[in-house]
């Protein structure tokens, strides 16, 4: 007793002693660490979501605009090769029209491969696009200078969006002389305007030398090793008694020795190369070639565009990309400038020449940047600029319609039975357990089911939206049943009693009173199930909805693909333009999903009823 009441003051409570205070402080630190952990856990999710969305949006936004070229095309009957038959316009040779349309713009381009490169500025789908316009408006036939729009190629489009290379300009300093020699044009400047380019070229050479040295030392290592091996073999062979083994070893030795000669030769060669390069680096007056691995240097004089091939500090041997007038010899400082394209030509899929041509088209006012209508109105294509999401979106819509028509009535009916009528017995317990487990079966298993049963056993159509819809319906059924049951359960029993009490049958009670009250909840669940189905990919891969479908599906049994599968397929294409379209398609898909979920939220909020 005394211990407790009369003890001395410091020991009055073990909870206020110094030790306890310290412990408490420590405990509070632990508390804040714990809280901080929780916060960062949330932070990780938020950060990831932001990262994902921003990646997709930044990559996808550019794909929503596109550059079209409108050129005067010659649509005369003989050019199109028309006869009087009905279908001749369909079969007409629009390829030639497009090809010549662009070539007419650059009459100085003569070489075969140059010409082909020139046509490559336009999309290879340009003729298809042009044909569609003419089919829509046959009155165009006969005109020979109507300007019509066709899509530009994907890389030209990327270039115009500034995604191929960055560049900068150097305004002309001093006069520039144009020297016409037998091996082409040479520009001679008063000032060291090409010094920059030269320095870069030398630097590149230095790098080259360094990598050669690294290569050489690697080779040297293996050379030493081989020498060691040879030595070992030479010691072993005399001691070897077994003739077979001896033969084998000798053959090996021979091989090693030939290896050595090869290696030595190679090392020597590399040494020479290195030496050459070193001496070039050491001599700043020596001109250097500007290769595809370096920046590109373009000289603009009036309309002419010249590309530097070999430079010294003040001179440049150039190639004519846009021809220069034959009588130009001296150019004043304000008449010319240099443009540097920083990304080396070999690192991009769009050559300097193509860049110059494209710039020229822009300059002439032929290029229009606008909403990417192709992306919203077309189906799949191997050309990124001709590829659109409409086909996949329609496929998704058709599939979802089937899914909805099957899973909604079935799901609601099953839920009504289980919630309102089913006696509690083994059978209904089995169904219940079964539904809960089905909800957790991996979606790909439903794909296997569809493949084995629908395609293989019942021989239904591959790639058809109705089969996809059936598979997705089976998959979303548990979701809808579970949501519907929850909604039905939320309707208070007093409503049922009231109806039963005045002699409504159980079915009437459900149909007239319970179901209408549960409907908002059921619809919310259904929309969420549909959203899941819309985002689902794996089971559809199994039943062949990965087909490459160019045409927009018009019915439930046309071959089709769906948005997520389209995303999956596009993600595999290496072209950067496809990457952008993939992101854009993801944005479209997410747009649909957000709309659906928002609808569900609104429904829930509006009709939410507290009993």
């Amino acid at each position, binding site marked *: 007793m005394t211990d407790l009441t009369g003890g001395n003051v410091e020991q009055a409570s073990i909870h206020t002693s110094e030790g306890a205070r310290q412990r408490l402080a420590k405990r509070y630190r*632990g508390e804040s660490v714990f809280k901080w952990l929780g916060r960062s856990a949330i932070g990780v999710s938020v950060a990831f979501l932001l990262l994902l969305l921003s990646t*997709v949006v930044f990559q996808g936004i550019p794909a929503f605009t596109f550059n079209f070229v409108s050129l005067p095309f010659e649509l005369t009957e003989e050019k199109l090769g028309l006869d009087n038959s009905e279908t001749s316009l369909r079969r007409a040779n629009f390829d030639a029209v497009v090809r010549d349309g662009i070539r007419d713009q650059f009459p100085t381009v003569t070489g075969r491969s140059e010409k082909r490169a020139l046509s490559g500025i336009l999309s290879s789908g340009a003729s298809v696009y042009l044909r569609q316009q003419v089919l829509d408006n046959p009155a165009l036939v006969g005109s020979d200078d109507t300007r019509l729009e066709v899509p530009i190629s994907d890389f030209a489009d990327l270039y115009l969006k500034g995604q191929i290379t960055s560049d900068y300009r150097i305004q002309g300093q001093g006069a520039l002389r144009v020297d016409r020699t037998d091996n082409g044009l040479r520009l001679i400047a008063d000032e060291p305007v090409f010094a920059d380019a030269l320095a870069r070229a030398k630097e590149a050479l230095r790098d080259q030398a360094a990598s050669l040295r690294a290569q050489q030392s690697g080779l040297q290592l293996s050379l030493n090793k081989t020498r060691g091996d040879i030595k070992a073999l030479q010691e072993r062979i005399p001691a070897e008694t077994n003739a077979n083994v001896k033969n084998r070893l000798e053959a090996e030795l021979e091989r090693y020795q030939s290896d050595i000669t090869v290696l030595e030769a190679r090392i020597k060669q590399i040494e020479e190369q290195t030496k050459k390069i070193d001496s070039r680096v050491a001599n700043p007056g020596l001109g250097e070639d500007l290769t595809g691995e370096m920046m590109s240097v373009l000289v603009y004089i009036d309309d002419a565009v010249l590309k530097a091939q070999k430079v010294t500090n003040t001179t440049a041997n150039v190639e004519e990309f846009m021809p220069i007038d034959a009588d130009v010899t001296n150019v004043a400082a304000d008449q010319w400038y240099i443009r540097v394209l920083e990304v080396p030509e070999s690192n991009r899929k769009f050559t300097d020449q193509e860049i110059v041509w494209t710039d020229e088209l822009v300059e002439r006012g032929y290029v229009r940047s606008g909403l990417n209508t192709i992306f919203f109105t077309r189906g799949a294509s191997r050309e990124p600029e001709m590829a659109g999401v409409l086909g996949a979106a329609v496929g998704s819509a058709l599939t979802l319609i089937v899914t909805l028509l099957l899973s909604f009535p079935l799901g609601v009916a*099953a839920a009504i039975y289980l919630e309102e009528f089913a006696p509690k017995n083994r059978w209904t317990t089995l169904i219940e357990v079964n539904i809960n487990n089905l909800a957790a079966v*991996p979606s790909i298993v439903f794909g296997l089911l569809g493949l*084995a049963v629908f395609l293989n056993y019942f021989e239904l159509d591959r790639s058809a939206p109705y089969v996809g819809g059936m598979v997705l319906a089976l998959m979303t059924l548990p979701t809808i049943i579970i949501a519907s049951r929850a909604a039905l359960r939320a309707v208070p029993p007093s409503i049922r009693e009231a109806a039963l009490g005045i002699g409504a049958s159980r079915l009437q009670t459900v149909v007239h009173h319970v179901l209408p009250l549960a409907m908002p909840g059921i619809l919310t669940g259904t929309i969420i199930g549909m959203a899941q189905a819309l985002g689902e990919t794996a089971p559809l891969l199994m039943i062949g909805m990965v087909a490459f479908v160019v045409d927009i599906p018009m019915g439930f049994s046309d071959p089709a693909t769906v948005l*997520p599968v389209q995303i999956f397929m596009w993600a595999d294409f290496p072209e950067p333009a496809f990457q952008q379209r993939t992101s854009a398609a993801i944005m479209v898909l997410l747009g649909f999903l957000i709309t659906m979920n928002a609808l569900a939220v609104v429904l829930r909020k509006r009709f939410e009823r507290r009993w």
Partner: protein
Amino acid sequence: MQGWFFVIILVLTACALFYIGRSRAVATVGGDPTVLHSKPGFHGAFVMICGMVPAVLLFFTWLLFSRYLTSAYVTAQLGADFANLATIEQNALIRNMRSFADRTDLSALSQLEAEAVEHYRAFVGRAALILQIVIGVLVVAGGWFAMRAIHQELRARQFVEKTVMSVLIAASGVAILTTLGIVLSLIFESVNFFQKVNFLDFLFGTHWSPQSAFEGVGEEATDRNSEVFGAIPVFAGTLLITAIAILVAAPIGLMSAIYLSDYASPKVRATAKPIMEILAGIPTVVYGFFAALTVAPFFRNTGEAIGISVSSESALAAGLVMGIMIIPFVSSLSDDVINSVPQSLRDGSAGLGATKSETIRRVILPAALPGIVSALMLAISRAIGETMIVVMAAGLSANMTVNPLEAVTTVTVQIVTLLVGDQEFDSAKTLAAFALGLVLFCVTLLLNVIALRVIKKYREQYD
């Protein structure tokens, strides 16, 4: 078009039957419907059901089996000519026959195929005629008998309600049918597979390279195939990626749940919860895209920069992104579990002077442990069955490794690669996908059953 026409006819007939039944009922009682036992509408529905249901059932049965029946008929007609063809050619013939059935120009077809088309048309034409007649007879007979049955005391409502009830019961049976379909098709195809490959070699073999499968029959084929269908590396890869995913998702998901349920202000909760929901609602193909094109290259480049070789299809990238995908799943399950720990336990602990985190760590988590464990089991089953992320970001070749920086493959990846684009259905390769599917199904099912049972027990404990 024909389909729509059919639907319209169907609806019109149904309406007509309904109308007939209704008027007949009213007529039998001299125009005073209040004396009828059931309302006239029920009589209408009664006649409609009697007339339509048998006919519609027959039609759907036909629809289900018509494809099978037509090919069976045509092959029987073609006889030996057909039987002598290789399986691939047989399939091609049937396919061509179908696609040319409603074209006039058969010049692109071989002699035998053209013959098949003729048989096909003849059979389909005849079958359609018979079907139409039978359906017509069924409708008329059913409707007529129903009409005759109408009288004042007819319990039409009971009849209609019984019918509706059977429809409801049938609807809830669809779930059972689905499971049955899954189980049967997986088992059936797997049995076929295990005739080509030794069961134990599949489960315990360590070499997986289905592309070198041997397409033949007999002893030798079995031996050769048993060597290339050893699924252990595939299972190992699945486990590796799943483990990474769970290592990411479990702590983050659990901590999020704890923070949201015990610490966060209502405002934070109101923003964090929807974000979790968005994360959960993003299609997996988007995660896959992100994993393959952003995360994996990032890891590879980072590795390169610090001198470690990281595969561009590293298990780490796929596992990490998958982990993030299942964070909301873990978090919402844990949230439920944590919230069902009764307040009295929290109060008790707080009353002894415990801090919040002490209460959570010492009281709530231990109490919620069974629930959390089963939540994690569900998460694992989710991760094992997840397909698109790994298809896009994980590898194809079956490496047996525990190094997360290397590429591994998973069960779902193999199923997809083995089946996509393949038209043949009885090769060991495609069948292997079903065997893998069976394993996948069994494992996830087991995890789910156990988890759901544990959760149920756990809930009961606090009810």
